[in-house]
């Protein structure tokens, strides 16, 4: 589907992970991860809980620190240099499982905060961008409310708009629908699908296989800190090769 639209081999890599390793104490949470993400590519990462998939994408914007290997984002190699990290974070938007909106700020202030303070966008311009993005996620009427007054689905759409306000080149989604009531999952996925169709580079940790089928160029299955299998969605779901993938797919597809 989306994958056949373009030939990805000719496109530049925007994220490169080379031999990335990470430990939590003795626990080897990421082992020898190699991953190349092309510009405009949509990647869905799935796997059982504790498999390291969240840790993987959190390493990309340095919410977690990896101990060995290289992560290159937009040509910048991640290091402990704060300026370096902040530069990468400006280019990479992130959406969390638990929304993490700022409860003491209105929706509009949540959206304009980073553009004003990080990108130094004039306030008026930032508000215009924010309103256009709120319209895009279909809740402009909530702009002056506080996060606590919105439903989970609305909060997650605000969180997506908030990340987009920084005009990121890459979006990371960490289980964006896992904390939502079932009837709200679709409204969030619809926004994400729209975003994917517009050509955003996306890395999504999710178990929404319908979403993976609709937009993913590649599905990655992780288990015990390793990338076990990766393939185009059609092939991935139809002919999983690894036993662990089969077992996992059997479990989650069964539940749906």
């Amino acid at each position, binding site marked *: 589907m989306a994958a056949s639209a373009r030939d990805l081999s000719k496109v530049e890599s925007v994220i490169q992970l080379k031999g990335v390793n990470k430990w939590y104490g003795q626990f080897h949470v990421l082992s020898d991860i190699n991953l190349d993400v092309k510009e405009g590519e949509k990647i869905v990462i799935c796997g059982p809980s504790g498999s390291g998939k969240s840790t993987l994408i959190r390493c990309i*914007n*340095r*919410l977690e620190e990896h101990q060995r290997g290289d992560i290159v984002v937009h040509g910048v190699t991640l290091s402990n240099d*704060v300026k370096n990290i*902040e530069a990468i*974070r*400006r280019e*990479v*938007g*992130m959406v*969390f499982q*638990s*929304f*993490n*909106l*700022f*409860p*003491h700020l*209105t929706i509009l202030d949540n959206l304009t*905060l*980073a553009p*004003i*303070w*990080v990108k*130094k966008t004039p306030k008026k311009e930032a508000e215009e961008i924010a309103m256009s993005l709120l319209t895009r996620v279909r809740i402009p009427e909530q702009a002056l409310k*506080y*996060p*606590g*007054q919105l439903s989970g689905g609305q909060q997650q759409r605000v969180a997506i708009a*908030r*990340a987009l306000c*920084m005009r990121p080149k890459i979006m990371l989604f960490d289980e964006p629908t896992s904390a939502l009531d079932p009837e709200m999952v679709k409204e969030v996925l619809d926004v994400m699908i729209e975003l994917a169709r517009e050509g955003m580079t996306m890395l999504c940790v999710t178990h929404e296989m319908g979403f993976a089928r609709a937009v993913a160029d590649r599905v990655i299955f992780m288990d015990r800190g390793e990338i076990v299998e990766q393939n185009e969605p059609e092939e991935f779901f139809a002919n999983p090769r690894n036993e662990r993938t089969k077992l996992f797919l059997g479990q989650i597809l069964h539940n749906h």
Partner: protein
Amino acid sequence: MTDAMPVGDRKPLAPPVDETGALGWARKNLFSSWGNGITTIVLIAFVVWVLSWFLEWALFTANFTASTGAECRGGGACWALIREKFRYIFFGSFPYEQHWRPLFAVITMLAMLVLSADRRMWNWRLLVIWGLGSFITFLLMFGQIHIPLSLILFVALVGGGIGLSLRSVLATPSERMAYYALVAIGAVGLVLRIVGVLPAWSIAIAPLSYVETSLWGGLPVTLILATYGLVFAFPYGVLLALGRRSNLPLIKGLCVGFIELIRGVPLISLLIMASVMLPLFLPSGTTIDKFLRAQVAVILFAGAYIAEVIRGGLQSLPKGQFEAADAMGLNYPQKTLLIILPQALRVVIPPLINTFIGFFKDTSLVLIIGIFDFLNTANQALVDPNWAGFPGEVYLFAAFIYFIFCFSMSRYSKYLEFELNKGTHR
């Protein structure tokens, strides 16, 4: 969702009759059983008996007009003593004919506190209110203020620095230039002053006669110690709390060490250290005002306690708030000032005001080192042999004044909690 019942047509039911109105309330809460009924009646009788005795003593048989203690004896409360001594209790040994000065200083400070209690003032106005209010207060109390050149330069340096760090993003080029100019003037001037190129010049504002701090007493002393103690201890406590959570081992170690050290000793011992020990360590010839030393001791002490209260608030924030701020590319000061502190401080308003109230009362410990705060002047009023023997009246009066302040703070805490959480309520 598919419920077909026409909900809107239902009549709302009135609540059960016996739970509404004063009678209903009394029946439910006071006379719900025989045991409760008897307890209620006994307690009411007791309260009436105590109250009637107190009113008899404090009002009906009280003496308001006696001119000596002897005339007061035998009757009820001797409020004539308060009438006779209230000016000493309120203003201590401040020159008698100049009592209007501490009076207006107290009024200025109260106005300052009331104004800054209003949330709409929480911006640059707060600086103006406190700058102006403090200047008036201390001008009234001292009578004369000498502003040395080095202080002016220091203020320029700090002001420019704060402006640069807080407004670096939002400032216009000309505003930023002004900050740079302030910093430059302050830094260069201070160096020249220290080297000795600039003279020890100072601005003298001297409209009134000079009254030194050892003559200050009563309510202004208590208010100054408590207000400025907390005003300085608060930002200091915030820094300590942030430092204690720092990833840098040195900063963290210093903050933990300081907090634990201060919390490990009583305030009294710190005050005695400040008043007796500190002068021994200073080079001979230099003296630091005793009042200032006590003030600094209060600030250090309160800072440690406030830090721990604020740390509680910082720890109550979900990790996701820090991560979201990080993921957006906010740097540490932005994250702290815009995301973390506004939320953490909201959470800790009740324990924070609790600490404030505690410190307001703890300032009375300065009587140990011979500073005449409000409680100490009240105490001194009892020493007069003409009026010996009426401690109850004086302490009751002092307690009443303390109560007004502490109760106001407590109510303000309640208002603030409500006000700050207004928007976030569902």
